[in-house]
């Protein structure tokens, strides 16, 4: 069994983003996606802190501390990029102007629900950041995450057990074991599977029915 690496997961998602889309990337593996889209393929990356048109990571010695992304890492601005303030940035997000948001996840359900901000109702001080705004505001969500938790519990589920971030907006999931589409009314459909894993093994590591395209 050869699970996809974090870089491979990011590269797969990157390759699937159509040119011309405006895309917001969450913290963690999603952030890596930008590095896998060449500048000449014009995807516009938005960062919630008011940056539209993020470029690749800066070269060593050319970092600018005034230019950061949502994960507070130093970034670059590509030609055509612009700045705005927070309310305008979230107007882009909440107003339906973002084609795609890619987030990390704790659980994704077959109805497209996403849980990624709190691990229980009693988690007293969870950090939501912009996840709920992106969760409902982006035209669609993709999630990049490990297929199971560290102790082997499935993160692909029928219904989320953790508190929801946003209902019904996830359309695709990239895990270390597979790429799954979510088709409304049907559920998870296997799109790609890591080398050396059978469909049965993948199903055993998932807590929701996985469908295949015949």
């Amino acid at each position, binding site marked *: 069994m050869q699970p996809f690496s974090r870089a491979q997961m990011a590269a797969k998602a990157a390759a699937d983003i159509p040119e011309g889309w405006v895309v917001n990337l969450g913290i963690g593996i999603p952030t890596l996606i930008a590095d896998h889209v060449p500048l000449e393929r014009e995807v516009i990356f938005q960062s919630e802190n008011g940056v539209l048109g993020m470029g690749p990571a800066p070269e060593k010695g050319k970092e600018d501390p005034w230019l950061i992304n949502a994960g507070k890492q130093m970034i670059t601005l590509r030609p055509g990029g612009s700045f705005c303030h927070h309310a305008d940035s*979230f107007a882009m997000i909440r107003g339906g102007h973002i084609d795609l948001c890619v987030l990390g996840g704790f659980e994704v359900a077959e109805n497209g629900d996403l849980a990624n901000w709190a691990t229980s109702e009693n988690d007293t*001080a969870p950090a*939501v950041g912009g996840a709920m705004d992106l969760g409902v505001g982006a035209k669609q969500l993709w999630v990049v995450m490990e297929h199971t938790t560290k102790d082997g519990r499935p993160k692909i589920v029928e219904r989320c057990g953790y508190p929801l971030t946003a209902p019904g907006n996830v359309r695709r999931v990239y895990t270390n074991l597979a790429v799954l589409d979510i088709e409304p009314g049907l559920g998870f459909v296997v799109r790609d599977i890591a080398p050396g894993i059978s469909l049965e093994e993948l199903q055993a590591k998932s807590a929701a029915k996985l469908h295949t395209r015949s």
Partner: protein
Amino acid sequence: MINKIVNSVAEALAGVKDGSTVLIGGFGSVGQPDELIEGLIEQGATDLTCVANNAGTGHVGLARLMELGRVRKIICSFPRSAGSVVFEELYREGKIELEIVPQGTMAERMRAAGAGIPAFYTATSTGTLLAKGKEEREFNGRKYVMEHALKADVALIEGWEADRWGNITYNQSGRNFNPVMAMAADLTIAQVQHIRELGELNPEMIATPGIYVKRVVRVDRGAPWA
């Protein structure tokens, strides 16, 4: 002659009252008015409600203000981050109130306050724990929750340049919450790195017009710490 420029951080913070709601700009350390926060610590106002994206890091700035017991409540989107040790301890001990607000809702609540809009509906947080107890209403078949404007007594912001009318420019992602917070407070205080003559700033570059700003102080801050 209008002159909003004051000579010291202490002068900039004069008169901040106990019990005030204080907006603090910045995203991470970028655009964060560090010297004004230090000034607020010196100034002494207490029983504060602070609104900031994060709940402070380390033992400086907002974290120090909280550690000194001067913050009754914090309103933020992302309280837990690397180094938010003071907040976590105070919160565990029940010594600070927390209101978690989705980041876009937080920005929009302040924008609404600045624009004279008392409340608005948003789809953000519908169907989640953060919608509990909030009025829900359906428009065109989609559910929304009502959120109230977030008006404040004081806003502490960081700009790049300013003139004596209080017009402000920003440096790249240093803009973030600052223009929105500037609109939402009765007393907006800005620290900037450069003072320009009136007329010297390109009007197209002014992101916060002086109408929102009461006091400006120049601080040689240098680059934000990473």
